[in-house]
């Protein structure tokens, strides 16, 4: 949890127990790539159960985020997350402010490398804020369905390294995203369609699963 640990970590977060600024940046850049590559998939889900712009919204935001990320000095994870938050806040839509808030709360986390406990605390605050602003609970078929189980894993994590913890969180987020197939939406545009959009996965939840899964290669 000190700069010293960070140094032994080769400065890129690929070996240590803690998430460094460089590690967070790599993670987020991998997320950008995943979303840009899969934008059409997300748009298609939003076309079936929304207004067909989610892939466009999130990939525009993250492309802007990538520019920001490339310019930062990798000091600590908070800075990387805040950079992405700013990009989302300049995006509008529903997902813009909600992801903006989520990453923004992460961006308000400790200004040093994060161990598993810091990770858990940061995601706990962030997810709680999204639930409050969106008035969304698990089962409402939104991004919250992936955020909440992933956050619970991180909060309760017994893993030693951030990578192990996030990898477990990714599995929980994926399961949460999958669970939205078969749900009748209570929030967001999919709720206008009632039973008609039941079988469609929520694109916001899928994006959250992609986010956690993007830590894999870091």
């Amino acid at each position, binding site marked *: 949890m000190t700069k010293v640990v960070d140094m032994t970590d080769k400065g890129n977060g690929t070996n240590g127990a803690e998430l460094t600024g460089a590690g967070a940046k790599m993670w987020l850049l991998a997320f950008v790539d995943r979303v840009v590559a899969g934008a059409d998939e997300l748009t298609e889900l939003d076309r079936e159960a929304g*207004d067909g*712009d989610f892939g466009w919204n999130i990939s525009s935001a993250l492309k802007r985020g990538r520019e920001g990320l490339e310019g930062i000095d990798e000091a600590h994870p908070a800075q990387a997350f805040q950079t992405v938050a700013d990009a989302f806040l300049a995006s*509008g*839509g*529903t997902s813009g402010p909600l992801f903006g808030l989520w990453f923004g709360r992460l961006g308000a986390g400790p200004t040093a490398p994060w161990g598993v406990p810091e990770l858990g605390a940061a995601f706990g605050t962030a997810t709680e804020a999204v639930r409050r602003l969106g008035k969304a609970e698990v089962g409402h078929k939104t991004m919250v369905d992936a955020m909440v189980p992933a956050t619970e894993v991180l909060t309760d994590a017994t893993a030693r390294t951030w990578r192990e913890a996030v990898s477990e969180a990714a599995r929980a987020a994926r399961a949460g995203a999958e669970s939205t197939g078969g749900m009748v939406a209570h929030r967001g545009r999919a709720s206008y369609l009632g039973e008609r959009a039941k079988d469609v996965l929520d694109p916001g939840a899928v994006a959250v699963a992609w986010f956690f899964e993007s830590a894999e290669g870091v």
Partner: protein
Amino acid sequence: MSRFFMNERETLVEQALEGFAESHSGLVDVHPDPLFVTRRTPTTGKVALLSGGGSGHEPLHTGFVGQGMLDAAVPGDVFTSPTALQVRAAIQAVDSGEGTVMVVKNYTGDVLNFSIAAELLADTHRVEQVLVDDDLATEREDDGGPGRRGTAAVVAVEKICGAAAEAGVPIAQVRDLGRRVVARSATLGVSFEACTNPETGRRSFELEPGEMEFGVGIHGERGIQTRVIGKADDLVESLVSRLVEAVGLRRSDSVLAIVNGLGATHGLELAVAARQTRRVLDGQGIDITRSLVGPYVTSLDMKGLSITLTALTDDLVKFWDAPVRTPALVW
């Protein structure tokens, strides 16, 4: 096959606004960063009226900026709420000290972004909100879901609040007037063909020949039911009957009827719908005191229409009739 005419998706809204502003340079100004539209000649000493939301619904809202209606419109990307920072900048530009009334269509994204903007300005500006939620198709006995969508009744709200603001009515009353219009309005929409997604060039849904979507909104989404298309008169009758009930209209009541094209609906088709709207209401002894027929709140190039009824009172008629001079509405 279907296709959206543009240069690239990235610059669509920005270039369209440039073109729009140049074509109406006597009436409006576009402020590029953050993006919003104001009257060319600002009017001070009155409540500022502002609205906005995703693009793709033109002439809404930018076409309603001008004397007797909006002071500013804040366009987002296509079907995407503008950001809180855009809304904040627009409020700062048009609030001349009498406060700002924001007309917000009830969508999660719009509500979030407009509310955040108002909060950001809480210390320096008085900002009131009129939430427009007129779409019957999305009414649900629910636990605080997103609630009814905001659709074409927003035109009535903007016209009437705009006239009131122009007449010097103070902020709380302009807000209450807007809320009263919302409470007295209901809308239902149908679609015969989906709109084109400007990014993919694909239609937002496919229908079999002879099918239509009943209960659509203005974002290309399917409605609440797929139905067989019958005669125009039967469909209009079923829409109007439900609206009459929802608004609670009775014999000898007076209404504003908005027969709104969703984008690709032809004037002949809208006129046939307007004709039957009047006949159904006549049959129930309800008077169409005012009407507006045309594409005012579109869903890109969706083929379909919506009907809105607003129960009128004398003061609402007076504000509706007051002069207006905007790109899309002039009288």
